[in-house]
């Protein structure tokens, strides 16, 4: 076969779709797992700074290992590699009396859902005409809910299979917590469907590019490169683009945003909702009995879930990969890369916010957590749906 034939084969629509999808999946997976390790490092550093400590600052390039005089500390950045290596090389200890198969299965079940969520998140506009979403499906948001609710199985099974009381309590707590918060998570998103009229995340992002981010009622029609050069046009489009509807809708959107954000905290077991782990009461919660790579899977799963959750927040509420003025990938591959960078930057901001919250707030008591979920967020989310409906009805008639 000569090159022309191979090229022709690769550009057949179906073949093209398949290999680009594989490529995208491969790259995204690697990038995300890399980001996870950076997040763990950031978590350690930020927590240290918040508590007036230095955090990891030693592990850098080990020059003494290869005959150098002094190690290069590199602000402790080597910790990102040292931590996984430590986890990988530890003994994988399986306690007696565990249910071996489920004990082995649980960490995988925790790791899988967050990675599946990444499939439907648009992490960029397009690059060389290839859409930067792995799967552009119409049920996008529902897919996220369906998949994230699976991660409760991993935790519950881990707690049960460990055959030990602390993990068991952790697993039970986790299942009730996740079920409770799934409810407000689902309800908080319904107003978004009502406003955007679609479940497809790509279309939600497109809607936000046209009408402004859901949490920020500005008028992006006014923001484009050539309009910025003509102030008169800019003013005109700002005034013309103004709509009372967006301002009114901003209220339910913010409510949805807050509920969604808090529910994501609960879904990913992050402080202040980390009752399934609760070191002080439950040793380590559901992963008490795990060691080595099995433990690392839980660890990875938690941070991957944080990443996926932040990705969902960014794509649904914060305009996805879009920024005002910046054009999308169809204007050249540079812009495509900028869009991808924008998405990752926004996700990082949310991740940092999650870390910041974790080192600020104490853990909720269990009854407070349930009360907040059922008596706080659930009615508010329900009310929010009606509020949105009323606003939409009043504005359109």
């Amino acid at each position: 076969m000569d090159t022309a034939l191979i090229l022709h084969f690769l550009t057949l629509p179906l073949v093209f779709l398949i290999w680009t999808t594989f490529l995208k999946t491969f790259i995204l997976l690697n990038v995300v797992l890399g980001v996870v390790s950076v997040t763990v490092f950031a978590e350690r550093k930020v927590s240290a700074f918040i508590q007036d400590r230095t955090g990891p600052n030693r592990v850098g390039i080990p020059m003494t290992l290869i005959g150098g005089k002094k190690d290069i500390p590199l602000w402790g950045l080597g910790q990102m590699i040292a931590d996984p290596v430590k986890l990988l090389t530890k003994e994988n200890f399986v306690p007696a009396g565990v249910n071996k198969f489920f004990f082995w299965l649980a960490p995988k079940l925790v790791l899988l859902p967050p990675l599946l969520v990444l499939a439907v998140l648009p992490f960029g506009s397009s690059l060389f005409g290839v859409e930067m979403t792995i799967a552009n499906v119409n049920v996008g948001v529902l897919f996220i809910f369906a998949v994230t609710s699976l991660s409760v199985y991993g935790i519950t099974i881990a707690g049960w299979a460990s055959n030990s009381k602390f993990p068991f309590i952790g697993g039970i707590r986790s299942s009730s917590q996740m079920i409770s918060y799934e409810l407000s998570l689902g309800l908080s998103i319904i107003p978004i469907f009502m406003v955007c009229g679609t479940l497809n995340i790509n279309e939600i992002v497109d809607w936000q590019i046209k009408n402004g981010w859901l949490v920020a009622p500005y008028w992006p029609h006014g923001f484009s490169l050539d309009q910025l050069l003509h102030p008169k046009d800019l003013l005109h489009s700002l005034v013309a683009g103004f709509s009372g509807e967006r301002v009114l809708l901003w209220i339910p959107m913010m409510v949805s945003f807050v509920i969604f954000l808090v529910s994501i905290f609960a879904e990913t077991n992050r402080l202040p909702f980390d009752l399934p782990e609760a070191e002080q009461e439950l040793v380590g919660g559901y992963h008490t009995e795990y060691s080595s790579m099995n433990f690392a899977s839980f660890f990875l799963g938690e941070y991957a879930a944080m990443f996926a959750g932040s990705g969902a927040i960014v794509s649904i509420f914060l305009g996805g990969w879009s920024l005002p003025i910046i054009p999308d990938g169809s204007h050249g591959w540079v812009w495509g890369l900028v869009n991808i960078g924008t998405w990752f930057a926004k996700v990082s901001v949310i991740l940092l916010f999650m870390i910041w919250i974790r080192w600020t707030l104490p853990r909720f008591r269990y009854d407070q957590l349930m009360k907040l979920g059922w008596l706080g967020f659930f009615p508010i989310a329900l009310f929010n749906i009606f509020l949105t409906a009323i606003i939409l009805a009043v504005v359109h008639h």
Partner: protein
Amino acid sequence: MAIVVNRPKLTFAEKCYLPSIFAGLAITWKHLKRALFNKGIVTMQYPEEKWDANLPEWYRGAPTLVVDENGREKCVSCQLCEFICPPRAITIKPMEIPENDKWRKVEKRPEEFDIDMARCIYCGLCEEVCPEEAIFLRKDYSITGLNRAEMVHDKKTLYKLGGVMKGLTFKWNELK
């Protein structure tokens, strides 16, 4: 008797958590910002920076043996410390001081004196019990070794760590 815990009446602002969450975020942000510019960090960079100069006088570090100002081993091998040591870290092999020795009058001294630092709990009972004031807990705390054998301090190490201790008991000093 049952105790009634009075629950304070919370205002709406307190009930919905938000004001205190923002207040907390502001506090941690302040610390984060300060630490980013390397200010207000309280961590001591251990091997480079040490607290040694500030150790209190009564600090109980590693047990050591001492000699007096005339260079005599103060230990007379009575083995009291060996018996009192709770984790049995001390092993002593006594010997008789030979006829022609300057300190023949003392009669005994240890031939071997081992303290297993992997066992020692730094309780200080050996120092307490010693009738000759020959064993002292000094200020060395960073005792390390790559294996168990390296963690055992023999007589030579113990005297090196202990050094000279002046002006305590003088009963073997014929000049006094």
